[in-house]
């Protein structure tokens, strides 16, 4: 289980600036359980954005947004609406946003921050990684996480160490994360995002919140038991 919380609406609106037609993507997995990206929250978001004057061209709630094959399969049937949209607002954890970005050639915006669980991670076998930093930056980086894709976790662009798109550390196997981000933003015609100077990260947001500390496994097991019994 990966815990997420919705970003404040003003931050979401800022990321959607200049875009009118939005397609919403929700997740029936962890995000539904966290009440951040299930169908109910997607509909709620639809209402809020419409109030702000946005046009919601469609929405889809996928079983597990971290499963790229499933995301592709589910979004394929919504292709026309997605092509019609300026961007996608993805209401789930950092993995789900990255997985969606991998399979859709559209600008994606994260609607949530992923909260650190202090070690207990979701079972995700894809190549995307989420640091659960509590301050999702995927909006600025084309849906590719600079904290996990870049060896040095740089947030303001590449260092001088990449050659032929590969990282100086393990050049045989490791792509330069910033090369991937650059190529992606270029493809989306959004290189302006790369010009934003990001302030140093607030690492205090990476500490697990008090209610999740030490009792987390117990708490989750309790919740699961209760749900099963009902």
């Amino acid at each position: 289980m990966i815990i997420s919380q919705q970003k404040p609406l003003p931050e979401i609106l800022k990321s959607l600036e200049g875009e009118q037609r939005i397609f919403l993507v929700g997740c029936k997995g962890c995000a539904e359980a966290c009440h951040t990206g299930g169908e109910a929250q997607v509909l709620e978001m639809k209402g809020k954005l419409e109030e702000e004057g946005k046009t919601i061209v469609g929405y889809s709630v996928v079983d597990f947004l971290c499963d790229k094959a499933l995301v592709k399969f589910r979004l394929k049937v919504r292709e026309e609406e997605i092509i019609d949209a300026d961007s996608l607002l993805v209401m789930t954890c950092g993995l789900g946003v990255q997985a969606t970005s991998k399979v859709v050639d559209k600008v994606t915006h994260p609607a949530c921050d992923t909260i650190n669980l202090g070690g207990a991670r979701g079972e995700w076998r894809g190549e995307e990684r989420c640091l659960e930093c509590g301050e999702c930056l995927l909006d600025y980086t084309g849906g590719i996480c600079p904290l996990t894709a870049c060896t040095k976790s740089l947030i303001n662009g590449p260092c001088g160490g990449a050659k032929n798109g590969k990282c100086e550390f393990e050049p045989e196997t490791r792509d330069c994360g910033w090369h991937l981000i650059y190529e992606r933003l270029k493809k989306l015609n959004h290189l302006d995002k790369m010009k934003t100077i990001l302030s140093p990260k607030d690492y205090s947001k990476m500490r697990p919140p008090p209610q999740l500390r030490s009792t987390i496994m117990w708490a989750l097991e309790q919740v699961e038991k209760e749900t099963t019994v009902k």
Partner: protein
Amino acid sequence: MNITELAKNGKFVVTAEVGPPKGVDIKEMLDDAELMRGRVDAINVTDQQSSVMRLGSLAACRLLKDRGLEPVLQMTCRDRNRIALQSDLLSAYILGIENVLCLTGDFVALGDHPQAKSVFDLDSVSLLYAARELEQGRDLAGNELTGTPRFCLGAVVTPGADPLEPQLIKMEKKVKAGAQFFQTQAVYEPGKFEEFMKAVAYLNVPVFVGIVLLKSAGMARFMNANVAGVHVPDNLIKEMEQAENRGQKSIEIAARLIKEMKPLCQGVHIMAIGWEKRVPEVLDATGL
């Protein structure tokens, strides 16, 4: 005088670098620096270059300063978090060190302590920003300082990067964050460098072209295969290969490159990498 002032006054700025020793025997480093006295405007002191643990740059800078030489403190983000970096910036100022070159730093796994935890709490852009904030009398958390430091802030760029655009975007961010001069990665292709200088002319910031002395054809091939953004063209490799006296040829090539690129930029930064003793000869051959 700080090096940006020199560039503003129209002086073609010459910088070189020394590397602090692994240990406390500083004689060789000081001897190398001594050879550059009167020949260069400032001497960069590297910061745990290649992620190899050595004597600190700050202490070495002060040693140069005590001897009347102008140091450029290199600071990387690899080994210190924002508390330590800001503190060291204050320390540098109080020790009389004005020129600071802000870099990301190599990854730890490439050095001699691959087990170390890499930090990168800040990056080169936010380190520049932090220094600017200190100059405004506050730290990164917005707390007020008692007494404010002044710096001359530099940064690096790789003119030969492919693709170049990400480097240009980051260079612009560095200027916005506070960079007042740039020292570049090694350049061996004046044509490409000219293109680069055209592309960054709008930033209106002094650029000191990087020159790494070629020691052999093998070194050139190694750099081509392994060093990002550095390309030694075949004709230079052939020249090195056929040279009877490699040291002489190395100086000749460096001088030729500097002469060709001098009209394009505001200074030169010579990285001798072990051949520091040859720096004065390069400058003689260049007429600088």
